[in-house]
């Protein structure tokens, strides 16, 4: 462990010592997580899972705990899409009932009250999850009962800025869909200033249930966003996720999905739009533990400036998981010679009757396509913009929920307007 990773963790440990008596949940779980961090520090680049994403800047920053509630969130709230759907709003990681509307058909509790760490997260393997486990104060615990279609629910994270104060928050969310239930969860993270948003979510999809999980990571350009989600899908269930990552100076979205029952399906699509010095990392592990399951993944990257995109995708097929159908594709469009993509697909297959494929493409805009547009009179800059937007439009096609897709489309348009300016 480097000195920075050790120093980085010591401030968090000190904060834990100050807070531990007030934190919800089993103190033994938190103490174990603290022990892990004390021994191993924050994850470093010598570890395989963090080879391409360096947390050094995060380790060197000094984070404070959020201050008590900030009343004026109007500027942040104004940036949210106007949707006719209930929402759960967290500001600096803490639930704000006054800004939220709890939906019908969904039961909602705060982690601050339940202290329930759930069953899927693995702080012993993922140390940013250990950090969350040690310091989690609040979060949303959402449950949808059997055969209920709960429609669209927004889960909002806002990070406020108080001048000169760098905050860290570690929300702990859980979503439990009972047999045959349906929910579309639109998760939006945004904020101002410098902060660390380190959420951990666990997502339980029971038999024949469907969770559509659409995420928009539009954090402040000074922020660190490290999210880890664990999904478990029972027989006949579907977990359909899409991650649009365009904010933060450093973003890591890690998703572990386990296909636990026959005929389960997982879609883990996403897009990353980066510029300047941004680094964003989509890391996924899908584990096929049952026969006849399908996993699908397409991740598209548009990288400008000196930005760097990382995609690590692992498909594991257990011995009994015959007739597995796994597909993975990572595509990157490099808009500048200094932009970079690191792509690491991995297949680990222990069954003999499976179909797994993966692929990657990396390139600049196609010269033939550019000339074709220009030969029709479209000026070069406009032609480039059309081709980038076409690439992105194709990525968003994976989001079937119309209102959620429109939210992402607007975010992409706004990003492009900003970047092209």
């Amino acid at each position, binding site marked *: 462990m480097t000195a920075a990773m050790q120093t980085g963790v010591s401030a968090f440990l000190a904060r834990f010592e100050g807070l531990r008596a007030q934190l919800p949940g089993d103190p033994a779980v938190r103490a174990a997580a603290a022990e892990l961090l004390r021994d191993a520090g924050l994850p470093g680049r010598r570890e395989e899972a963090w080879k391409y994403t360096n947390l050094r800047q995060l380790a060197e920053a000094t984070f404070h705990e959020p201050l008590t509630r900030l009343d004026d969130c109007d500027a942040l709230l104004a940036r949210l899409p106007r949707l006719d759907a209930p929402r759960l709003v967290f500001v600096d990681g803490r639930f704000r009932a006054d800004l939220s509307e709890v939906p019908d058909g969904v039961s909602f509790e705060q982690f601050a009250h339940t202290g329930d760490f759930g069953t899927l997260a693995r702080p012993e393997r993922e140390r940013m999850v250990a950090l969350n486990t040690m310091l989690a104060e609040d979060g949303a615990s959402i449950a949808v009962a059997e055969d209920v279609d709960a429609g669209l629910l927004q889960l909002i994270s806002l990070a406020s800025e108080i001048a000169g104060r760098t905050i860290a928050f570690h929300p702990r969310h859980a979503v439990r869909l009972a047999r045959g239930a349906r929910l579309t969860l639109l998760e939006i993270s945004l904020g101002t200033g410098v902060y660390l948003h380190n959420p951990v979510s666990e997502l339980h999809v029971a038999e024949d249930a469907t969770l559509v999980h659409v995420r928009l990571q539009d954090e402040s350009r000074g922020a660190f966003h490290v999210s880890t989600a664990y999904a478990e899908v029972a027989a006949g269930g579907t977990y359909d996720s899409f991650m649009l990552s365009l904010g933060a100076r450093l973003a890591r979205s890690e998703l572990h999905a386990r296909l636990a029952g026959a005929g389960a399906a997982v879609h883990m699509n996403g897009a990353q739009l980066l510029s300047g010095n941004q680094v964003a990392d989509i890391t996924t592990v899908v584990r096929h533990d049952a026969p006849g399951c399908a996993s699908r993944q397409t991740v598209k990257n548009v990288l400008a400036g000196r930005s760097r995109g990382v995609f690590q995708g692992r498909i594991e097929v257990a011995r009994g998981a015959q007739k597995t159908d796994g597909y993975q594709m990572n595509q990157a469009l490099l808009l500048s010679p200094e932009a970079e993509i690191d792509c690491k697909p991995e297949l680990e297959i222990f069954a003999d009757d499976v179909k797994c494929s993966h692929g990657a493409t990396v390139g600049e805009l196609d010269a033939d396509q550019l000339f074709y547009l*220009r030969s*029709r*009179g479209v000026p070069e800059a406009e*032609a480039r913009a*059309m081709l980038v937007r*076409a690439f992105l439009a194709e990525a968003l096609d994976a989001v079937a929920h119309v209102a959620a897709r429109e939210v992402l489309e607007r975010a992409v348009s706004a990003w492009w307007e900003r970047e092209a300016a």
Partner: protein
Amino acid sequence: MLEISGLTATIDGKQILNGIDLIVPTGEVHAIMGPNGSGKSTLSYVLSGREGYEVTGGTAQFDGKDLLAMTPEQRAATGLFLAFQYPVELPGVNNANFLRVALNAQRRARGESELDAIQFLKLARAETKRLSMPDDMLKRNVNVGFSGGEKKRNEVLQMAILRPRLAILDETDSGLDIDALKIVADGVNALRGPAFSALVITHYQRLLDHIVPDRVHVLAGGRIIRSGGPELAQELEANGYAGMVAEAA
């Protein structure tokens, strides 16, 4: 009027055009015929401004303006249109949207007012209908999943909507069945008039039965070795290129 004089061009240092002299007066349709490798496609790309071709000598003027000094989009706005031999697929780009952006970009460059979405759609639907093309051609992504014939018809549709003053058709007949060939020819013939010129590049005489040219030029070894009336195409069809090329050498 298109006036090409002493035009030479190279690609990757290799000389392909060896001094082209050609005049296409306004209102005329000229055909350029020639064997494979004679420089036909190079000529069309050099005139439309594709990167990778280096003009090493000569001039090309359109209505007195220096074509070679313009960007591809400026040439388009001036009235030049290239119908591609291999039209390019644009996944994620809607055909109607593409055409509207292109038409309005040209109009803007010419100082004309832009068409709004409704005005454009009206125009596009009328042209689609006139060319006996299905409406859904406008809704699809540009050339994606189009058959060879559909791609060529889409080129003609673009030409009909963009209304160029000079069209270069680069082997537009290749890969077309007779019905598609007629649609393409009708599309070109419909534009013929005192203000429209075309350069029809083809290997075979077949297309010229439907688009009857005012003049036929034979390109070989990067030079025009013979020019004549439409009967020259018949002669080539009967005797092939070999004799004529040998004679010129």
